[in-house]
């Protein structure tokens, strides 16, 4: 075992760490460039130093394969930040960004941890990496069809119910809400208070978007994400894939107004609409409501005009009809008066003719009646005369007048001498007077015995 020993010296921990530190210093006497992704970035309690891990990830899997502690001490911090500001970097030092750092290597004998002491940054490299990562996110979103997804949602004509995602109390918050309040329209604003930058931004924004997306459909019109104009570097928080996904998948239209001047963040790209400032976003909403009201007013005016036009047109028609009616009715009455007169004359004519006819007929009738009655009387008289004639013939006086007489025996007229005997008393009636006789003889006609009659 001793064969393996380089030296008999027994190291204390401090001696060991110090020895290793010397080795490191010997190996890396100068500064070196190191590339890696920032993770777990934190600020010391006294806010003077920045600590983070610099990690190397597996090129395909999201898996850390190597890691080192890093620190930016107070004395370099402002230099580094100034350099970033100078070139107008659209990022700031934060988790998940890949950086190229100029570092010294050191080991703290007290802890045995070796660290990268950052003294400078290569902003161009980092910018490139940030741009690359940005492009990757955009590519992924495109692949998933999320870039235009929120644009398919529709901002209602009257967007009054607003889900506001911002830092409550910030200048952006006031700008936005004041603009809405000043409009005098009935906006209803629900606010979700968020960190709009820093390491809580991603989580807060995702939660906020989830929160509003749990609202029932009709209770929200639009989500507005807004913040004031910070440094351009702050905008890099909005090149976040998780936030972008949440915006894209929101069922409500998302308006982003995150206060930048030149670049468009990925959040802007996936949002329904984006504006530069909170004021502008608010004005647009107000304008939309105003436009709707104006359109309503205009439609109302058109309805009013149309109805007035309609009514006057109908009135005109009515007048026309009335005039026509008057004409037609006077025509009608004239016609009917004429025809009435004509009818009257015709009736009178008919009546005259009828009366004349009736006169004739009645004349004829009376003549007939006269004739008929004459005939009846004549007939009756004839009949009576006939009866008279008969009576005349039958009247015994008329027979007696001609010399005939009637002989009675015992008041019975004698028609034969048969039953007479001589000496019988008989009575003879003459036209004028009677004879009383006694039969003295009788004689029968032809075969009968002859009877002699002796007068008294």
């Amino acid at each position, binding site marked *: 075992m001793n064969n393996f020993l380089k030296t008999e010296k027994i190291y204390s921990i401090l001696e060991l760490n110090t020895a290793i530190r010397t080795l490191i210093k010997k190996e890396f006497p100068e500064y070196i460039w190191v590339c890696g992704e920032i993770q777990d970035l934190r600020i010391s309690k006294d806010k003077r130093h920045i600590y983070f891990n610099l990690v190397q990830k597996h090129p395909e899997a999201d898996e850390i394969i190597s890691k080192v502690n890093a620190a930016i001490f107070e004395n370099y911090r402002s230099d580094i930040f100034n350099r970033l500001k100078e070139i107008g970097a659209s990022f700031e030092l934060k988790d998940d960004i890949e950086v190229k750092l100029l570092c010294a290597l050191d080991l703290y004998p007290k802890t045995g941890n070796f660290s990268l002491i950052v003294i400078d940054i290569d902003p161009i490299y980092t910018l490139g990496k940030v741009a690359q990562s940005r492009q990757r996110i955009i590519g992924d979103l495109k692949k998933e069809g999320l870039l235009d997804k929120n644009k398919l949602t529709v901002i209602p004509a009257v967007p009054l119910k607003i889900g506001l995602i911002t830092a409550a109390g910030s200048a952006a918050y006031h700008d936005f809400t004041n603009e809405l309040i000043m409009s005098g329209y009935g906006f209803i604003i629900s606010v979700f208070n968020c960190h709009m930058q820093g390491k809580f931004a991603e989580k807060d924004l995702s939660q906020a978007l989830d929160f509003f997306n749990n609202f029932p459909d009709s209770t929200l019109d639009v989500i507005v994400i807004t913040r004031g104009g910070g440094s351009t570097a702050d905008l890099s928080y909005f090149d976040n894939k998780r936030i972008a996904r949440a915006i894209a998948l929101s069922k409500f239209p998302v308006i982003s107004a995150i206060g930048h001047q030149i670049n468009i963040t990925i959040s802007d790209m996936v949002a329904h609409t984006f504006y530069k400032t909170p004021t502008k976003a608010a004005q647009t909403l107000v304008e939309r409501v105003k436009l709707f009201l104006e359109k309503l007013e205009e439609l109302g005016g058109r309805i009013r005009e149309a109805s007035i036009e309609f009514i006057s047109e109908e009135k005109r028609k009515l007048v026309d009809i009335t005039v026509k009616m008057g004409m037609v009715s006077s025509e009608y009455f004239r016609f009917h008066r004429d025809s009435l007169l004509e009818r009257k004359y015709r009736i009178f004519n008919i009546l005259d003719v009828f*009366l004349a006819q*009736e*006169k004739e007929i*009645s*004349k004829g009738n*009376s003549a007939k*009646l*006269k004739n008929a*009655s*004459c005939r009846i*009387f004549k007939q*009756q*008289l004839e*009949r*009576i005369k006939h*009866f*008279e004639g*008969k*009576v005349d013939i*039958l*009247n*015994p*006086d008329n027979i007696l007048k001609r010399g005939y007489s*009637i002989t*009675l025996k015992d*008041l*019975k*007229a004698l028609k034969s001498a048969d039953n007479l005997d001589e000496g019988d008393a008989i009575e003879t*009636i003459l036209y004028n007077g009677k004879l009383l006789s006694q039969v003295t003889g009788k004689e029968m006609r032809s075969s009968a015995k002859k009877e002699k009659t002796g007068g008294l």
Partner: protein
Amino acid sequence: MSKKELNYSEAISELQKILEGLESEQIDVDEVSLKVKKAIELIRLCREKIEKTELEVKKIIKEFEKNPENR
């Protein structure tokens, strides 16, 4: 024979009956003269009726012919 005056058709039928009776030859002489008397009376009655009625009818017709519209 009732006191009531006979109407014309009754008179005529009475007359007819009397004539039939006279023509039957089975009749008493006294009865004959009564019957004849009666017949003559009836004839006169009928004649009167006829004449009176004829006069009335003629008068009515004459009036009617004067004013046919009044029918």
